């Protein structure tokens, strides 16, 4: 039986080369309807997970802003199905161990090594103005 799900996609355009960023969280570039890779935790919170790999400014970028998506995690992840996750300083997913830390969603799969791409429910940040990753 299939283990899949549905998602809400925002059809944006790339604000930069994102050809190596499929399944990474992305943020708003600051220009209308453009997304970009976050570069520091001072930038706005990610708005979703990039579904494709646009290679130039202006190319279509499909961003999952809510729902089932694949997402890349960091090398130290020790992820169990059902874990709530946050993002590290590089905007890779990691298990949230901070009791008051921001959660972005729930993992649907387990993963223990490498930089795995796993299925998650992305709910996005429901946090507060000024929150940083």
């Amino acid at each position: 039986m299939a283990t899949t799900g549905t998602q809400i996609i925002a059809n944006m355009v790339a604000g930069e080369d994102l050809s190596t960023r499929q399944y990474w969280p992305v943020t708003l570039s600051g220009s209308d309807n453009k997304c970009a890779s976050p570069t520091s935790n001072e930038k706005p919170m990610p708005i979703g997970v990039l579904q494709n790999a646009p290679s130039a400014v202006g190319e279509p970028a499909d961003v999952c802003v809510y729902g089932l998506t694949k997402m890349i995690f960091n090398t130290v992840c020790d992820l169990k199905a059902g874990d709530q996750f946050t993002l590290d300083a590089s905007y890779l997913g990691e298990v949230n161990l901070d009791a008051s830390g921001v959660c972005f969603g729930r993992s649907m799969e387990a993963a223990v090594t490498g930089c795995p791409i796993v299925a998650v429910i992305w709910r996005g940040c429901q946090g507060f103005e000024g929150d940083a990753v």
Partner: protein
Amino acid sequence: MATTGMQLKANMIAEEDLSTRQFWAVTSSGCSWKCSSPTSTTQPMPIGVLQNAPSANSAAEICFFGMTKLRCNTATDIGCGDLLTLDASFLGETQTTASSQYFARAMEAATSGCPIIMVLWTGNQGFVGDTVA
């Protein structure tokens, strides 16, 4: 006119017999893509509402966001628009504690029994370590 709506769903697998749990909140069992009935407040937060009634190891459809029916209790009357949390049995009930989490918004009123009512399920946007009670 129809009073319905849309929902986002995850197609998971029942870890256990959930044939009597249609429209109850369910959680991740801890195994990839598997869901189970919450058994205590120390388990991970519910991820959504079961839409069908699967036997063990059968396909389980989970609404993790959107319009769904939800099994509730009526220890306190539920009014239209009430914010709903879950009781210790994971039945929906009106949230009466200020600044406390909620999972859904009631679209219908209920005053007796354990009714199944239409709600807008938004899920928990909380923190690691949150429990229902």
